[in-house]
């Protein structure tokens, strides 16, 4: 196998690693931001209820 042919396989292998990691980071970041937003909303709701506000208001 020539270096040029081998280089294609090497590039493909590193591209797969990069793609998997990027995909994982995107999914992880979206999940983290959704959960952080949910926690903030729920904490505000709990504070509002503790302050005596009605849930429907």
């Amino acid at each position, binding site marked *: *196998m020539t270096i040029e042919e081998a*280089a294609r*396989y*090497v590039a493909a292998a590193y591209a797969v690693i990069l793609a*998997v990691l990027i995909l994982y980071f995107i999914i992880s970041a979206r999940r983290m931001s959704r*959960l*952080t937003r949910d*926690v903030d909303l729920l904490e505000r*709701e709990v504070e509002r209820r503790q302050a005596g506000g009605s849930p429907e208001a």
Partner: protein
Amino acid sequence: MKKLVSAPSLFIGAGIFLIVGLLLGFWWAPVDSSSMGFSQKIFYYHAPIAETALVAFGIAFVAAIAYLRTQDLKWDRLGYVCVRLGLLFSVMVMITGMIWGKASWGTWWAWEPRLTTFLLVCFLYVAYWVLRSVVEEEQRRATYAAVFAIIAFIDVPITFFATRFLPEGLHPVVITTGDTGMEGSMFASFFISMIGMTLLLVALIRSELLVETLKDRVADLKHSIGG
């Protein structure tokens, strides 16, 4: 909320080691003189990823024992996170291994000891995941998962030593006791990448544990407002 933000320094450190390891592997380490030739360059990430996957399963094993001893759900959470990350790394190992196999052996897959036992590891930990999803009650799920993680881990050392006990397979034994089996520059590049992958695993474990903490917090808050 600030303390729930993952330390970026671990990711930055991992990134630096991984980039340096890769650059050294390509520009400092020579092209392999064996039949593998230039395709051996895949080794500088493939092997560290494989070792890191096995380390993640090892941590899951330790966490499983710790859970069974203490019944503390934090160990269950750690085990679950490590299995998830171990599978992520395993996917990368399998795909890069197949590409490397095609380049150096001329085949995408061979039923030889290392590959077969590693595939079995993947199936076992996928089964661990399935098991968790079918048990509703938290403590029972954690106990079953811990027992399963201990049983599944039996295949991990078998995978690691498969090439040593059964050397007739295609997969080479590179690093042995007292011999790195490669030139110094190759080993240095591999070792730096190995540090990078380990740091990446630690950073990801930390990040995933934060996600699990956030999930628990959401569940607690929903419970407290009756949602």
